[in-house]
């Protein structure tokens, strides 16, 4: 072993002194919060991330403390790991790596936010905020459309995918590159991002289908159907897509309702992607009723949908939809006899967006006073029906404002739904843990890097769909493949 020289010794001495002084400096700078005063109420935090159950793979739940103070400290502690975040402006931003470690070490247990604030020379401590980390992760991506919650005019819109594990948001398709057209109704087959479709209207019109790594564009309008396909649902087998075909009008109102979207005609059709044909059945496309919002059962043996007695649009507030179910034979493409499962119209209510849980035990739907465009209905709430017992419940995830579109995660453990609870207009996503007892836990909003993001963001998050992996598409790729493509016309199968 080589002997230490004099200069080495001096160097070591300087280093040691430096380390000691640095640690003394750090400890001097550290907050001495042991002598704090307790506050008898919870801190006002935005977004509300308290008392929630969160997935172990969620991005940091950054929040703002709205109580006035000079300095804020949040001690975050989990099962076997804890750390501290300080802030001068009330914005609590969790470092990604520490946050991930915290959640990973706290699966199936509680994490606690101890919030302190410095006012003058005193430290104050709020009662701790407790959240629970579920054992089951959520699907990694959520896909949505960003639009202006407007009336007739639109500007920029697009379909985006957001990694739930961090804050990366990427466009899947944006209308800036497709002639500022309308892009809507993205849908997946069983939460699989490799099987996707969406519509484009006006310029570059057609239904874009991404399946087996191939992009195609079809025109689902035929002479025998009301319109091109509108609200979609992929059959779990991946071959069929059920659509509603609608004639829609929009009216604007003097009070309460800002706008109402009403069907004047509405049927269901099924698109067979292998034969490039659409077909229907008089039982799901009758002129005497409006059929809409198709949704396949996870086993593909039933098609759920909503149906209302056809009325003129001037009677918009009397059009009420019941929940229906019809059997479907995948091999023959034949439908059975429709069944009314929930007769909401009898209670002067109307159902929209039925979605069966992946295990087939529950159906989640939206209930409003009338019509089917529930996003404009303040009274609209989510309801849950247990398909085994027939019991209907109103989960404690609703608010005084609109709850509307919703979907399940691939394992049925998470629900994502759109809600206007923040300000009454701009739709945001909320996630809720759905436990084995069929209970939906307190929901929380999609976290953003900047906790103030939602305060000034003037777009709505529309049609949240959870997918297990990223969509390997981007606007350039889609336009390159389908931009100049003439949509393939589908044929109507009359028999």
């Amino acid at each position, binding site marked *: 072993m080589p002997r230490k020289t004099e200069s080495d010794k001096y160097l070591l001495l300087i280093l040691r002194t430096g380390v000691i002084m640095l640690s003394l400096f750090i400890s001097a700078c550290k907050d001495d919060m042991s002598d704090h005063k307790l506050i008898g109420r919870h801190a006002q935090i935005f977004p509300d991330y308290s008392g929630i159950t969160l997935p172990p793979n969620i991005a940091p739940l950054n929040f703002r403390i709205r109580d006035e103070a000079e300095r804020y400290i949040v001690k975050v502690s989990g099962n076997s790991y804890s750390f501290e975040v300080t802030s001068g402006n009330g914005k609590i931003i969790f470092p990604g790596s520490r946050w991930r470690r915290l959640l990973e070490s706290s699966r199936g247990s509680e994490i606690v936010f101890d919030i302190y604030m410095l006012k003058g020379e005193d430290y104050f401590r709020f009662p701790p905020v407790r959240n629970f980390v579920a054992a089951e992760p959520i699907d990694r991506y959520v896909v949505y459309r960003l639009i202006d919650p407007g009336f*007739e005019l639109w500007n920029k819109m697009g379909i985006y995918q957001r990694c739930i594990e961090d804050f990366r948001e990427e466009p899947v398709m944006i209308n*800036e590159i497709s002639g500022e057209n309308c892009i809507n109704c993205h849908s997946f087959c069983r939460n699989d991002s490799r099987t996707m479709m969406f519509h484009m209207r006006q310029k570059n019109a057609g239904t874009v289908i991404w399946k087996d790594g191939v992009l195609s564009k079809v025109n689902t309008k035929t002479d025998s159907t009301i319109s091109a396909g509108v609200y979609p649902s992929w059959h779990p087998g991946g071959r069929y897509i059920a659509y509603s075909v609608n004639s829609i009008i929009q009216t*604007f109102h*003097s009070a309460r309702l*800002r706008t109402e979207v009403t069907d004047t005609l509405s049927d269901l059709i099924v698109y067979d992607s292998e034969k490039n044909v659409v077909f229907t059945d008089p039982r799901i496309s009758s002129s005497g009723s409006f059929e809409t919002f198709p949704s396949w059962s996870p086993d593909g043996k039933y098609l759920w949908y909503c149906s209302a007695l056809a009325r003129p649009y001037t009677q918009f507030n009397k059009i009420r939809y019941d929940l229906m179910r019809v059997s479907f034979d995948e091999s023959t493409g034949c439908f059975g006899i429709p069944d009314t499962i929930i007769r909401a119209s009898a209670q002067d209510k109307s159902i929209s967006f039925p979605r069966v849980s992946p295990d087939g035990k529950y159906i989640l739907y939206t209930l409003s006073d009338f019509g089917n465009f529930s996003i404009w209905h303040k009274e609209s709430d989510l309801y849950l029906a247990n398909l085994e017992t027939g019991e209907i419940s109103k989960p404690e995830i609703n608010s005084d404002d609109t709850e509307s579109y919703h979907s399940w995660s691939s394992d049925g453990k998470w629900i994502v739904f759109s809600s206007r609870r923040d300000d009454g207009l701009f739709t945001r996503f909320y996630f809720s843990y759905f436990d084995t007892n069929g209970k939906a836990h307190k929901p929380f909003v999609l976290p953003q890097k900047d906790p103030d993001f939602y*305060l*000034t*963001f*003037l777009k709505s998050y529309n049609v949240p769909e959870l997918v297990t992996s990223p969509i390997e598409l981007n606007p*350039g790729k889609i336009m390159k493949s389908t931009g100049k493509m003439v949509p393939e016309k589908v044929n109507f199968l009359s028999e």
Partner: protein
Amino acid sequence: MAILIRVKNYMRKAFSYSFLRPVSGTLFFTCIFLYFFFFKRNHLAFQEQLQLFRFSNEYFREFLSRPGGLSEYAGAFLTQFYFSPFTAALIITLLCAAIFLLFQKIFSAYSLKGHFWSYIPVILIAALHSDYSYSTSLTVAFLFSTMYFALYLITGERKMQLCLLPLTWPLLYIATGGYSLVTGIMCTIHAALVREDKLKWPVAIIVPALAIFVPLTVSNTVFYGGDGRIFTSFLPLQPGTFRELFLVLIFYAPAVLLVSALFKPGEKTIPAGLKYALNGAALILVVAFSVYVFRSFRDKNTELLLGMDRDVQRSDWGSVLEKSGQIVEPNRMALHYTNLALFKTGHLCDRLFHYPQSGKAGLWLDWQQDWLIAFFGCGTYYQIGYNSEAYRWAYEAMVAKGPNPRSLKILALTCIADNDLRLAEKYLNVLRESAFYREWAEQYLLKLYDPAFPDEDREISARRALLIRSSFINSNNLGGRLQHLLREHPDNRMAYEYFMASLLLEKDLDGFAASIDRVKDFGYKSLPVHFEEAIVAYRSYSGKEILPSGYTISQQTMNRLEAYASAVYSYGTNNSAAARKMYAKFGGTYWYYLKFTDHQKPLN
């Protein structure tokens, strides 16, 4: 003799080329400033109203999604100062001066001496700014791309240029979009025809390659293919009022450089006398060109209309009416502001027909899927207390044109009136991110949740007093819903006067007769002149008396009627002559409108 020679030398020096240069430059840019300050103030103020520059990361990020976005961002930053005519004119003058100096630098490198060549792009830019739809962002992008070329010239024949070009070209494309192609043309001309060093051909090959390759790759990787116009993105090439002029601007410099590089006029010696003559001719040309361009691009009517719009925002109703009188061919936009100003000054039913009306189309704007209609037309709904429609129109304008202060203010105020405070807070939060609307937003944010505030705030309490509680489907035409507003609030004077005016404008005397009695509810001390005229007309048409009790027809109206009747009688059946001759004296009466005006003639 010596003294004479000294005086001569002094005079020569005083009026020499170097003396004239700063004087003419100062004079020129002073003229530009004054032109924008006096003649273009309204449309510059209007441009400010169409956007809201916000100090936030989110706002900045929006501009990074498209080529030219950085210029757009810088342009938006400058446009926020256009609320003041002084700062607006100053900013455009400074932009022009910067472009002038850059072109001087560029042209001097080509031995093109004299101001003339550098004045041309400035004149073109000033002319482009005379169009209200021309954005300052486009000038900023032009400035950036010209600056890039000037820097390219400054780096001269250094080897580092070979490294700098590939490194900076993507930035140029991201910042200026399609302008980079024009810069590419200029750089290529310079490299191929002017450079003499070893790098001449490498640069001449690299630059066009970059100008093509960079947009192709950047637009596909960073911008997802852009809007399909990879090479011309951000250039205003859509058919419009200024496309040709814009093309002249962007291809002016490449053309001058090409000609200069081929013919090298700067190297030729010009006799002093000819030089002065050429300068004189150039000066005349500059002035003549300026006059031609500005005459072609000065749209007085639009400027007046935008002036009316500005006055409406400031509630300067007298000025609205003054400008209305100056518009040569009033369109429905101008007319609906005129009628609003007439109501606000209490003269809608006294002086309505003193302005060239044509049916009720000039009372309000009917809904169309057009942002301009939504932007301009929203105010009438707001003033009349039709909260839901004011909100809808403001929202549509905001969606179509992006967040702007006017729409956001109306959205916030209508939401507060509707007690939709959380939504109001959102709009106020957005306004708070701007420099010039922060104070306005904060004063509302401070007291937003104070229960006493709506009653204390005059604006809000006025809106709340007219809130509609009953639900009905709105129409795309205000006329269809005026009766609903009156049923809801029988004291809504504006709704009543607009309703009565619409009946008069549609020559619906029976409808007028059915509603005239309600005049008593509004406390008119005497009948408005046009109401008197309509009552008299109805009396003669139907033989029925509809004069509300407690009112009389004034003697002036009776005298005017007598004069009118005898004038009509004197022309017999020659209606066209009567209309022509009687207009000066009776054009402001309802009788004249009733008899001679085609109320179904569509307005522009």
